[in-house]
């Protein structure tokens, strides 16, 4: 399913300075029973966000009205664990279009890119600056510029470049996905299949 184009995102950000946030925290397995891609945002960080009786946990950042925005800033090794794309769907469906972290788990990162959430990997030092800026002022704006591949703390002007391969960048800028690409080269694939070693 194609997604909205991503060019420049200026937004406040939600800080989650915890390391090794795994996909079971992002969306627990018991919420993976749907057969359609709908409503996963409601269960984003379900067990950190809600008590067993479904009342909100006031100390969790998504329940704190001080913080909001389209950017989620996570600790190191964000998205480890299961390959469930539902984790990326939950992030997107909740309203985030970008996750910033000093390190991403592979599969989560790939899933994000496939559905239109931009994973922005920054240095640990820059991640610390982003967390500090949000702590100092929850209304601080972060600017993520995909064409230039930069992320900027608007207030201070502190800026860092991030990597993304050219192909994926074009996809994000245009709202294309890999499925479109592959469907267009099916005949080439079928020819290749005849030449396999076994």
């Amino acid at each position, binding site marked *: 399913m194609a997604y909205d184009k991503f060019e420049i995102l200026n937004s406040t950000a939600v800080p989650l300075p915890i390391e090794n946030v795994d996909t*079971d925290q992002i969306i627990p397995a018991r919420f993976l029973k749907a057969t359609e891609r709908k409503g996963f945002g409601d269960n984003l960080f379900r067990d950190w966000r809600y008590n067993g009786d479904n009342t909100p946990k006031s100390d969790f950042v998504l329940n704190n009205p001080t913080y909001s925005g389209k950017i989620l800033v996570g600790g190191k090794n964000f998205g480890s664990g299961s*390959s469930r794309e539902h984790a990326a769907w939950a992030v997107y469906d909740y309203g985030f279009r970008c996750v910033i972290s000093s390190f991403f788990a592979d599969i989560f990162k790939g899933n994000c890119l496939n559905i239109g959430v931009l994973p922005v990997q920054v240095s640990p030092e820059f991640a610390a600056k982003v967390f500090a800026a949000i702590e100092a002022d929850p209304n601080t704006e972060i600017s993520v510029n995909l064409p230039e591949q930069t992320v900027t703390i608007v207030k201070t002007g502190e800026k860092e470049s991030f990597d993304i391969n050219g*192909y994926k960048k074009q996809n994000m800028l245009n709202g294309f996905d890999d*499925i479109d690409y592959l469907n267009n080269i099916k005949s080439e*694939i079928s020819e290749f299949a005849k030449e*396999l070693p*076994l």
Partner: protein
Amino acid sequence: MSTKKTLFDKVWDSHVVKHVEDGPDVLFIDRHLVHEVTSPVAFLGIKNRKSGVLFPNKTFATADHNTPTINQHLPVADPLSANQLKALEENAKEYGISHWGLGHEKNGIVHVVGPEYGITQPGATIVCGDSHTSTHGAFGAIAFGIGTSEVEMVLSTQCIMQPKPKKMRINIEGELNFGVTPKDVALYIISQLTTSGATGYFVEYAGDVFENMTMEGRMTVCNLSIEMGARGGMIAPDEKTFEYVKGREFTPTGAAWDKAMAYWKTLKTDEGAEFDKELTFSASDIEPMITYGTNPGMGMGISKSIPNAEDLEGGVATYKKSLGYMAFNEGEDMIGKPIDFVFIGSCTNGRIEDFRAFTSIVKGRKKADNVTAWLVPGSHKVESAIKEEGLLDILTEAGFELREPGCSACLAMNDDKVPAGKLAVSTSNRNFEGRQGPGSRTLLASPLVAAAAAVTGKVTDPRELMKELA
């Protein structure tokens, strides 16, 4: 550039349809395994795009994540789970994909049945919407987990788009100590590398320890590759591999077998081929392992005590949060901690050898009264072997019951949930917060450690109970 290739290079390069400039490789997939949880949205996608399934005979579907492990002959009680199972059945039927659903004699965990029926073969590229697809690397296949968008890509084009990962080799030489199993080897490696230490890499396991391992042991090790962040792990195929694969339902026969063997024998890393990273450990340093925290990298030898935060590099707050969740303190011993649940099963340790190991310890003993034990075979084939080998009689005599196959309490999508606050010794793969049920606390360990806990009611060094076997 060196023309010497690693095992990984050989398999990867032979499956690259094309390289996208400044982008990923288009990788051809030989075998696609599908289960009920990560596939429905992919099938919706091919319906919406009207793209169809390009090679239905290369995709195999089984129901495992969301299935009950008792009374499988009855209708599934949870309407959402039942709906997902029905969707898989209907999608498989519509697109002509083989489907081993609930109640089918070949049903079981996707990564257990793949090898059992010869779907898993050396040199193949294998994907599944499940991160433990790395299991199949034990056969010298490139196998890894994918997201649902990629499941759709494989259904409609038999390809995915992936940048080629970096290569790491992990060597372990020497002989394993008494009571040390493949699970301990894997938990040891992960504890050394951390849960993200191999992110971006594809791992080859090499050396005496892996050469001497059974195929089932190799599957356990490769299965856990993802727990250190690696996309997958693989072991060069050898006589043991060929012997295992031979004669299974989907294994080639006759001339095709000879052709396959000739090719499979070339699948090893060339002398002098380069890896981006190479690590070497000594078998003698490994003892039975147990985890104490909330990721698989937080493991240690069972006789050791929980590390102090200040002795670790960075991440003190996260470390303390993790121990807080587990209700453990720095410096505590794990041995002697009372436990509530034991789970043996999963794609990590749900095969026949795991049940043999478990049974070897509980034989002649009794399940501790304070322990609820869930014994869940990885497949019907494993279940049958447990019965045929007489293990079930021993287990029953010791006070254990056998459940029906499925992923079960490994991810607790079905009713097999460890209650909040309870402590479980599990042979599965993840000890994340709430993984085995909201608020549950998990200690990952081998089937031997699980068995020792099951009969003593507390964390126990299995070697203490194995002395008479030595």
